[in-house]
């Protein structure tokens, strides 16, 4: 299927925060409660529509365990977007965000859009990190922030698509050089710059959704 752009995403964060579940929910609309540890990188892909443009999201789900980190960080290069995930029921996964963020910024483009995600929002009774803390961290570091639940699918679509919208906005503003593959953006086959860059009529399909559904 043809697309206007391909955006490379990475999903990063501590082990067990739900990175693979977020990907599975986004690509397959399913939740798998028991999931093997990821080693290396697993991949997913999905088409979304942003402002009338078909965009392919190529998602790299990386291993979160410390022993794989030196390997997986080598694959951060060339990412246009990153989902930085912590678990709202485990304080330590929030405490490690700075380290993940440093890694991401060091090994990828400075323009990379980073979405901070507090996952497992369905486990409110076990919450260990307040939403305000996530918001404050995101504000301090210039990130977008959402709380999600891979289990209930709450805000999962929004997290991926809002990241894509922000990348697309940067393209339109000329902040991303779409010819530089180090930025994690590829122009789709048979797309010319004149047709793929720049604002277009605002048209949305069913997969292009509002910025905040408010379910969490």
């Amino acid at each position: 299927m043809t697309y206007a752009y391909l955006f490379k995403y990475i999903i990063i964060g501590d082990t067990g925060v739900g990175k693979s579940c977020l990907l599975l929910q986004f690509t397959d609309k399913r939740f798998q409660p028991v999931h093997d540890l990821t080693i290396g990188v697993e991949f997913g892909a999905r088409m979304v529509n942003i402002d009338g443009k078909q965009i392919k999201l190529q998602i790299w789900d990386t291993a979160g365990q410390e022993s794989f980190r030196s390997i997986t960080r080598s694959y951060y290069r060339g990412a246009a977007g990153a989902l930085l995930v912590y678990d709202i029921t485990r304080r330590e996964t929030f405490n490690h965000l700075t380290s993940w963020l440093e890694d991401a910024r060091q090994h990828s483009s400075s323009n990379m859009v980073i979405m901070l995600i507090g996952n497992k929002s369905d486990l409110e009774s076990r919450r260990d990190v307040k939403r305000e803390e996530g918001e404050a961290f995101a504000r301090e570091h210039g990130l977008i922030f959402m709380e999600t639940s891979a289990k209930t699918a709450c805000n999962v679509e929004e997290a991926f698509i809002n990241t894509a919208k922000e990348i697309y906005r940067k393209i339109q503003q000329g902040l991303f050089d779409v010819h530089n593959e180090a930025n994690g953006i590829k122009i789709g086959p048979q797309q010319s710059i004149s047709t793929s860059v720049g604002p277009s009529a605002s048209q949305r399909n069913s997969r292009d959704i509002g910025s905040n559904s408010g379910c969490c």
Partner: protein
Amino acid sequence: MGPPLPDLQEPPPPGTSSQTRRPLLCDVIKPAPHRDVTVRVVPPPRFLPRLLHPLPSSGDIAMRRDRGPKTALGGAGEVEPGGMAASPMGRPRRLQRYLQSGEFDQFRDFPIFESNFVQFCPHIYPAPTSDLWPQVTRLGEVANEVTMGVAASSPALELPDLLLLAGPAKENGHLQLFGLFPLKFVQLFVHDKSRCQLEVKLNTSRTFYLQLRAPLETRDREFGQWVRLLYRLRFLSASAVPFTQE
């Protein structure tokens, strides 16, 4: 601890000794008769998957990174400058072509040795644990097509360091990359030599079984290349780490 290592013996390449020269990737896939390698095969499972009919395939055993026109080559595994082996038909196979198409920019120039397999489950109660993973189906049934390749992340490497797994996408059947795994976290075994079956064991306790899918006339040769590769990976990799469960 992992299972005991298979009992493998291999004569040194002609004119060399293992003390003086480490093998290159081209040696790994150089076609050779099975008699050069003695493998103690893992006993077959109690319930064997049904034998598969050979499926159409180009029979092209590719391990190339250049994309230009090629001169006639003597056969799979012929060594070329750069230490890589060429396919007899001089063109890359499916996974390599997919990666060369550019969607995965970082893997575009990886030298890859790849084959097509079908995944099967020899156990009574298969228990898939990852939905991102190719699913196994019922006992003995043909499950998913899997293209498995080993790749070197740098042409300078003497041995491959990555395992790539791909398969048809659900929506359109086009090849899609499932995962990339550092080979130091993977163990490959011969599961059943007579059926050209491999066991792939990740150090997360995830294990799956693959049966080579290749034309009858080239299947043994192609499987032999995997056997030789397994041998090299298990015994000659300087970066090999003990296989332990975390």
